[in-house]
């Protein structure tokens, strides 16, 4: 997602990471109890995982996150007017890039006189589960996070 943000930045496409709540709290990164802790975890996200996009932090009660469905790693795309043009219950860089390639052509198509009308489409996309990387992340959170995920999803 960071590489894509760099790639499409020159096409008037912005990209941010919005910090929500701890999906898999563990001994090293426990559940949030204060905004100070939330900012600290968000800075660790930037420094440890090398997130180069701007990181913004939601309120402690997750008002924004909850209003948009509270999924742990979802992606939304907004037009400059605030119009929601894409929503995905999981983040997949290929899916997002495919959408951005499509939407980034809209302004130039309008400039050359195309009369464009919106319509809705539903599509089932596929993501790489990257299990090994996921478990490495859980281990970083702490043994509790690993144990709870294995219990919740024994075949995961």
């Amino acid at each position, binding site marked *: 997602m960071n590489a894509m943000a760099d790639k499409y930045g020159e096409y008037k496409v912005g990209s*941010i990471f919005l910090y929500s709540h701890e999906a898999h709290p563990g001994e090293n990164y426990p559940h949030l109890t204060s905004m100070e802790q939330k900012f600290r975890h968000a800075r660790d996200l930037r420094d440890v995982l090398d997130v180069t996009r701007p*990181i913004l932090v939601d309120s402690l009660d*997750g008002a924004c996150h909850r*209003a948009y469905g509270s*999924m742990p790693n979802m992606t*939304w795309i907004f037009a400059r007017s605030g119009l929601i043009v894409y929503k995905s219950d999981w983040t997949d860089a290929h899916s997002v890039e495919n959408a951005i390639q499509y939407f980034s052509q809209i302004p130039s198509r309008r400039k050359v006189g195309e009369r464009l009308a919106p319509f809705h489409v539903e599509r089932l996309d596929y993501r790489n589960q990257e299990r090994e990387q996921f478990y490495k992340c859980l281990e970083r959170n702490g043994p509790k996070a690993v144990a709870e995920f294995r*219990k919740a999803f024994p075949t995961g």
Partner: protein
Amino acid sequence: MDDRLTRYNYDSFVPEKFEPWMNFEASPKTGTVGLDFPLWDLDQTPTRLSEIWSRHDYTIVEFGSFT
């Protein structure tokens, strides 16, 4: 902390604690204007989601956390 804060910031990844929050089906529809909320950058400077999306033709917003 009040009850909602505690429930949203659950302390254990167990289905009865995380499943109630997963409401993507009830989230805002494409083709509607997004709901606006206050946000903060890492320097704790306040901003708003609407301020973010108004800066570019399109803005990608990835939700997530360290864990």
